[in-house]
């Protein structure tokens, strides 16, 4: 996977960066065709570095890089813009998306579909309009792209999901109908069908799909909690 690369004008987003040596940064970027790539941005922390106003998270960038190792060298960065900066709550939700990508997406694996879903989720967060559908859509596409697609229209036995029944979702198998009250968390068949149809208008669908995605993501994150979620929850307490 670490063959010599020379990439130019690649659409990308900055997910995270950390200081490296005196004046440089190591970037974790999500690019459209090459997926997550680690890039060394030389001199990016110098006081008058031209990269300072460019390497901003949640903003469309166009990056060029070269190199063969695990960490490539950033050659060129251009700000694409056209989208207001995230603010307030939207920022925290943006960090949540970034943490999901950093934790779940393997390096150097291109996912153009997921990239587009990320871009449109950010646009929705910047617009401040109802963000729940965009987040759920992004989470679903993320799981599908890394090979854990959800089964929503059919249950674990292959039968069509019935909007009148209640189901329990088994990780990697799919929904199974719940008969009576088994005291286990369950969700309605209608929620599953709504999710399959990408329709999040019903508040019940919004609440139940959020619970389902949290359960599934926790499984794929190996039970290790998301830092951005913890910070978000703590901020609500003040």
């Amino acid at each position, binding site marked *: 996977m670490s063959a010599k690369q020379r990439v130019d004008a690649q659409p990308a987003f900055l997910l995270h960066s950390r200081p490296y040596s005196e004046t440089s940064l190591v970037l974790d970027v999500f690019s459209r065709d090459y997926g997550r790539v680690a890039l060394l941005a030389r001199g990016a922390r110098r006081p008058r570095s*031209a990269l300072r106003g*460019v390497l901003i998270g949640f903003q469309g960038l166009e990056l060029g890089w070269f190199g063969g190792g695990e960490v490539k060298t950033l050659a060129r960065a251009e700000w694409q813009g056209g989208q207001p*900066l995230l603010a307030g709550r939207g920022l925290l939700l943006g960090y949540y998306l970034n943490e999901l990508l950093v934790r779940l997406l393997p390096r150097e694996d291109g996912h153009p579909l997921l990239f587009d879903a990320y871009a449109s989720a950010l646009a929705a967060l910047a617009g401040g309009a109802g963000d729940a559908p965009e987040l759920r859509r992004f989470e679903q596409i993320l799981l599908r792209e890394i090979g854990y697609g959800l089964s929503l229209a059919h249950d674990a036995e292959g039968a069509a999901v019935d909007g009148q029944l209640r189901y329990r979702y088994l990780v990697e198998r799919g929904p199974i109908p719940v008969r009576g009250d088994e005291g286990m968390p369950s969700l309605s068949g209608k929620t599953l069908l709504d999710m399959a149809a990408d329709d999040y208008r019903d508040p019940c669908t919004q609440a139940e799909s959020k619970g389902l995605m949290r359960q599934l993501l926790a499984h794929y994150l190996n039970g290790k909690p998301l830092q*951005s979620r913890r*910070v978000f929850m703590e901020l609500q307490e003040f």
Partner: protein
Amino acid sequence: MVEALRCLPGVGPKSAQRMAYHLLQHDRHGAKRLAAALSGALEVLHHCSRCNNFTEQEICERCLSSRRDPSQLCVIEMPVDLNSMELTHAYNGLYYVLMGRLSPLDGVGPRELAFERLLQRAGDGLVKEVILATNYTNEGEATAHYLSEMLRARGIRVSRIARGVPVGGELEFTDAATVAQALIERRDY
């Protein structure tokens, strides 16, 4: 010793080795002074109980000064930002140093930054306005946003330093993101 020196930012194994050999071979006196300065600083320096900056006293000189306006409190991320603010000679209020910024991906939240202490400080009854001067990065913005909500909920007036084209700056040489934001945040003139 090499291992110990590597805890400094920007010091890798090579530079740590060079420093260690230099101190031991050529500058043993300097090494003694460094050791004394380090342990001395660690012993006497702690956080000012009012502004959270480093000080040798319980409350630092700036916070005790009668020439400072106690009705304004400027919140900054790091002690170096205080120097930048003081260089302006345009501010005569007091400060609060957060010693960091919200950084969700690194696990830095309101607990780690002790938001509670700042809220207490701002609620002393004398502070009329809190000026948020955290950096204009995503992390600084997130920090400012949440602080503003918490402070406003406690009935304190909150303002944020403005951003835009630098003084003496020409549009031609200003980065596009800055010009875009300056345009979005333009004001009547």
